[in-house]
């Protein structure tokens, strides 16, 4: 990857920012530790010198000088200071050259610059010291060099430098690595997308095994690609299906016309041929109409017609319309309505869906069979079930039946099928409902509708259709 690209990549910049923040945090942490440590050490030495001054002050005057000498002798590191001065400030004992000016003698610890006796330093160190005027008028000073905290600070600083630099570099490295990795994956995705754009619809993004966000994103996109591939394939298939479905009636028309033109001897014969031709063209037109209707519904532009719809009314009406048809075919058409149910939807479309289901059921149920239309209601859902004693829909056909223009082989010769269930599926999908196709034998198709939105609104019991109600009851 190009260097500037690496530096510009957001992953790398983020890593850099995190590293900087981390370094700042560590520095602050160490500063805090140093500050606490320093305060602790000072407090400790303060306690020590206070204890010492009290100890020596309590000794009889004669033993003080020797005690101070002992005290200083024991201090191998040379951090202890002690001094005894008389009332006018002349040194009596200890390693302090003279009393510092403005030195408080109240017995409290203070930072002060002490000049060591007989060892004049380039600059006298700052020590913690405590002074006290004794009963005899002498002044006793005890001190302790706290420069060792400075040493600690330098040690801490070193540790900081030694620890922080590798950590910072590590951060940068990690950032660069992540950045390179991300870039590589984006590049891979880009290449695959280019292939998809070029028409390789089967191509998918690499998902990998990891459960990182990138993999999840890839899975989401792949899901979308699956759906789109199905749709595109379905659309591509529609062309063939239309061609096939239109070709059959159009071939008949063409043959009839051609033969009629040469062979018709009387006007009646010619009219007969024309009637056949018109019927064939009407069949072709019906296919086109159904296709356009399906497109209209699938394009999802019909939400405008949505409102509260009484499913029970629809079920009753459909039953009313199809009862004579069923009777003619000697099929018993039963209707069972649990209770009145309202859903949010397009009345005409839902009617069309239920009518289509019943239409199909009656069409494929042999004479003497039974078609049952039921409306069941739960708390937040309603189920419209159409059950028949026909052959039903076999397992492999179940999915296919919902595809556009699918027509099972045995239906091929039945006019006007093909789109019925596709239409129902499209309507159900538009409403966000579910279409459930039960297993064969015996047809069973259910529309699972959600009543959540309309369920709470007041029940309208159709007075308009009261006649219909009494009839089916």
């Amino acid at each position: 990857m190009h260097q500037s690209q690496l530096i510009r990549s957001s992953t790398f910049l983020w890593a850099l920012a995190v590293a900087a923040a981390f370094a700042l945090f560590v520095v602050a942490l160490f500063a805090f530790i140093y500050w606490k440590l320093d305060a602790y050490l000072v407090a400790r030495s303060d306690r020590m010198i206070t204890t010492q001054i009290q100890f020596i002050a309590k000794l009889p005057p004669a033993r003080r000088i020797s005690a101070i000498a002992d005290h200083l002798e024991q201090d191998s590191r040379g951090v202890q200071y002690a001094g005894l001065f008389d009332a006018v400030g002349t040194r009596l004992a200890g390693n302090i050259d003279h009393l510092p000016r403005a030195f408080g003698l109240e017995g409290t610890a203070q930072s002060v610059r002490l000049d060591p006796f007989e060892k004049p330093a380039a600059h006298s160190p700052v020590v913690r010291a405590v002074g006290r005027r004794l009963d005899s008028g002498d002044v006793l000073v005890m001190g302790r060099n706290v420069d060792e905290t400075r040493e600690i600070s330098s040690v801490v600083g070193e540790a900081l430098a030694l620890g922080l630099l590798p950590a910072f570099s590590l951060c940068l490295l990690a950032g660069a690595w992540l950045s390179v990795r991300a870039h590589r994956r984006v590049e891979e995705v880009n290449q695959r997308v280019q292939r998809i754009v070029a028409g390789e619809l089967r191509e998918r993004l690499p998902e990998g095994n990891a459960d990182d966000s990138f993999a999840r994103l890839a899975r989401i996109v792949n899901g979308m690609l699956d759906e789109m591939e199905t749709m595109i394939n379905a659309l591509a298939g529609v062309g063939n299906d239309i061609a096939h479905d239109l070709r059959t009636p159009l071939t008949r028309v063409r043959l009839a016309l051609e033969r009629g033109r040469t062979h018709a001897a009387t006007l009646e014969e010619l009219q007969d041929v024309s009637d056949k031709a018109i019927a064939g063209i009407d069949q072709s037109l019906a296919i086109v109409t159904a296709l356009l209707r399906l497109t209209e519904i699938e394009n999802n532009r019909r939400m405008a017609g949505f409102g509260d719809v009484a499913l029970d009314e629809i079920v009753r009406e459909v039953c009313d319309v199809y009862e004579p048809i069923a009777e003619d075919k000697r099929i018993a058409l039963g209707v069972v309505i649990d209770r009145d149910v309202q859903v949010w939807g397009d009345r005409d479309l839902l009617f069309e869906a239920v009518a289509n289901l019943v239409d199909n059921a009656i069409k494929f149920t042999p004479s003497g069979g039974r078609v049952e239309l039921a409306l069941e209601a739960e708390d937040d859902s309603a189920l419209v079930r159409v059950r028949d004693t026909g052959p039903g829909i076999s397992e492999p056909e179940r999915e296919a039946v919902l595809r556009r223009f699918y027509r099972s082989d045995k239906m091929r010769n039945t006019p006007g099928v093909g789109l019925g269930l596709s239409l129902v599926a499209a309507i159900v999908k538009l409403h966000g409902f579910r279409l459930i196709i039960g297993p064969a034998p015996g047809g069973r198709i259910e529309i699972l509708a959600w009543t959540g939105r309309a369920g709470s609104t007041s029940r309208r019991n159709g007075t308009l259709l009261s006649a219909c109600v009494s009839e089916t009851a």
Partner: protein
Amino acid sequence: MTPRDAEPVLSRRAPRRRADHGPKTMNRILLIEDDAETAEAIVAELADRGFEVHWAGDGIDGLDRARASSPDAMIVDRMLPGMDGLAVVEALRKDLVRTPVLVLSALGAVDDRVRGLRMGGDDYLTKPFALVELVARIEALLRRPVDSCETILRVGPLEVDLIDRTARRGERELNLLPREFRLLEYMMRRNDQLLTRAMLLEEVWNYKFVPATTNLIDVHMGRLRHKVDGPRETQLIHNVRGSGFVLRSRQ
């Protein structure tokens, strides 16, 4: 074709015959259609049926003619050069012209249909259509039943009481199911008129789509006919082959 008249639907009229030319007042139809061949076929068919048809090839010309000649009914194509068909209808309705309009369109979608009717069209026919269908609808538009307060409809020996929801033929009580009653009522309001299957589906059953079972209407009509026309009675409900049904008041 019988002339338009303002009599209520229960009026008796001469039976319709194809060759019934030369009525005293010919219904004047204005056709606004840009496709010359389609227009020619429509004009010829309507002329055959005894209408006086004028043809305008675009919306602007059509609007001018509609304003100038005030036809009895109009057939307006939606997609027109110059001025959209619906715009023509809208302009006329703004001028408070109530001429019945049949909108023709290649757009079959339900929304388009609803829009076409909302913009002032009285009926909507999707291209391609059967000429029989077009004529039936034009006749229906010309003879729209008067919104009368009649509660009893009478056609020939048939009598329907809209309040009691009872029907009788002569002395014989007809025991009709609600859906059969609705169908008979609709037919009695439009007696001696050809009612196509599509019209019945739309008007009586309120269908917004074409059902897969193509003989849906025939089955219902069969039931009604069975009850209305007894075995030894004159047939009142007639099947017009390939087109639809007519309730004839007289033979």
